[in-house]
């Protein structure tokens, strides 16, 4: 039973960690955009056409067109804390080019967007340093994505390993139980008890272990969150946003409990059915 609790706790923990990392990545992704700077010679009609064709790209989530005036306003808003920059921009008669902001669906698609924009017919509409995006950020995001991937794989392996250990232990326990009751089982067999009648109690017992373990694992994770949220006021542990994890867990409480119960019962049932099979075969030659 202890092993089952550990297994299910690992399952739960991997699920929550995974969701939390995905959330972190999604948040960072949302902040990424590609800025397409347009030449002053580009007409508004050309700009809108480019925006429309960008919008049709499957890799692009959202496109926003800012004319020179709007781009300037956006620049002023962004640099509100830096009056020198604002002064420099406004005094020299709006040096800010009209801009198309492109939000990709996925970080890895930035390159393809860049390729699209580098086609000659679009290239000539843009300034020399267009498009621009924050290369450092992309690298950081790549690192996070990679780390999450590795963690996810480790999680899957750990779950599988523990599930197998757990199944083997249940298997063994049941074999012992059957061995202790082999006389009774022999008599049941001779009196014509069906396989399911003999197997039933063993399977039900293991399924109940699975059920209890599921409840325990959810309680353990729950109390871990309670303890950590009160102890760690700083709600972020590196990339693992505990606040979000806790919230996520709270929101999907019922779903997690159901899933855990299902997994627990599945492990218990499958291992007990296999364990009893050998003893319930009719040994007729």
């Amino acid at each position, binding site marked *: 039973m202890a092993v089952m609790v550990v297994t299910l706790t690992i399952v739960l923990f991997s699920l929550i960690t995974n969701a939390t990392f995905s959330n972190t990545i999604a948040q960072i992704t949302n902040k990424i955009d590609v800025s397409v700077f347009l030449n002053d010679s580009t007409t508004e009609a050309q700009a809108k056409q480019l925006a429309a064709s960008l919008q049709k790209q499957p890799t692009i989530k959202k496109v926003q067109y800012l004319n020179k005036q709007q781009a300037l306003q956006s620049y002023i808003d962004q640099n509100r804390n830096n009056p020198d920059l604002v002064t420099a921009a406004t005094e020299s008669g709006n040096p800010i080019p009209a801009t198309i902001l492109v939000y990709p669906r996925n970080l890895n698609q930035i390159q393809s967007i860049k390729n699209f924009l580098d086609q000659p017919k679009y290239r000539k509409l843009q300034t020399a340093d267009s498009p621009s995006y924050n290369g450092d950020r992309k690298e950081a995001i790549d690192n996070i994505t990679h780390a999450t991937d590795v963690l996810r794989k480790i999680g899957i392996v750990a779950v599988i390993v523990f599930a197998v250990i757990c199944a083997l232990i249940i298997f063994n326990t049941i074999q012992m139980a059957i061995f202790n009751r082999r006389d009774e089982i022999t008599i049941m067999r001779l009196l014509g008890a069906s396989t399911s009648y003999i197997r039933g109690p063993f399977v039900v017992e293991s399924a109940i272990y699975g059920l209890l373990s599921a409840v325990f694992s959810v309680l353990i994770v729950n109390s871990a969150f309670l303890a950590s949220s009160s102890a760690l006021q700083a709600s972020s542990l590196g990339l693992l946003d505990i606040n979000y994890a806790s919230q996520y867990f709270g929101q999907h409480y019922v779903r997690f409990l159901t899933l855990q119960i299902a997994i627990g019962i599945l492990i218990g049932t499958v291992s007990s059915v296999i364990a009893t099979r050998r003893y319930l075969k009719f040994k*007729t030659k």
Partner: protein
Amino acid sequence: MILLDRVTKTYSRDTDAALDRITLHVEPKEFVIVVGQSGAGKTTLLRLLTREERPTSGKIIVGGIDYDKLKDKDIPMLRRKIGVVFQDFKLLPGKTVYENVAFALEIVGVSNREIKHTVPKVLDIVNLKGKENRMPRALSGGERQRVAIARAIVRQPRILIADEPTGNLDPKHAWDVIRVLEKINRYGTTVLLTTHNQDIVNRLKRRVVTIHHGKVASDRANAGYKA
């Protein structure tokens, strides 16, 4: 009721056949005694009937069921139609007399009401009224064997197979058991009894099948037997 046609059972290639082309026909409501020395093949014969063993060759039909066509999953149903009594009783030591008999009904899904109704009647037939709550270890060998008989007949099988039911009993208790078997036979159950108790065979005056080295040596009605 029971039909064996040239049934052979060989346990391994190096040994002689435990049963060698046995042919036997038992009519409904018959009381047949199978005799023979230890190792003659009596127990093998019974184990073939309860499907604890499969014949190497030959045909077995019991109560209309052809064993060649019997699948593993149908074995429980077959065993519910045959009552079996063993030399070593095979009672559950942790259950009372009543519970041991009720157990045979429980495992086939009979309702509690029916169990409460049936079990006392059967205990009455085997003369164990008043001992419902005893544990098997508190009973004599004869009483234990009668509990086993009660358990075997509580589902009203058409055939009762008794494998040396008196083997571990002194003569008085042995006769208690035999009388119960006779009573059950009078009620219409086919009884197949194996024994090597000369006295019982000679006084019962029933059909006697003698098995010797895995073959039917003699098959006579109202016969005697000399071990």
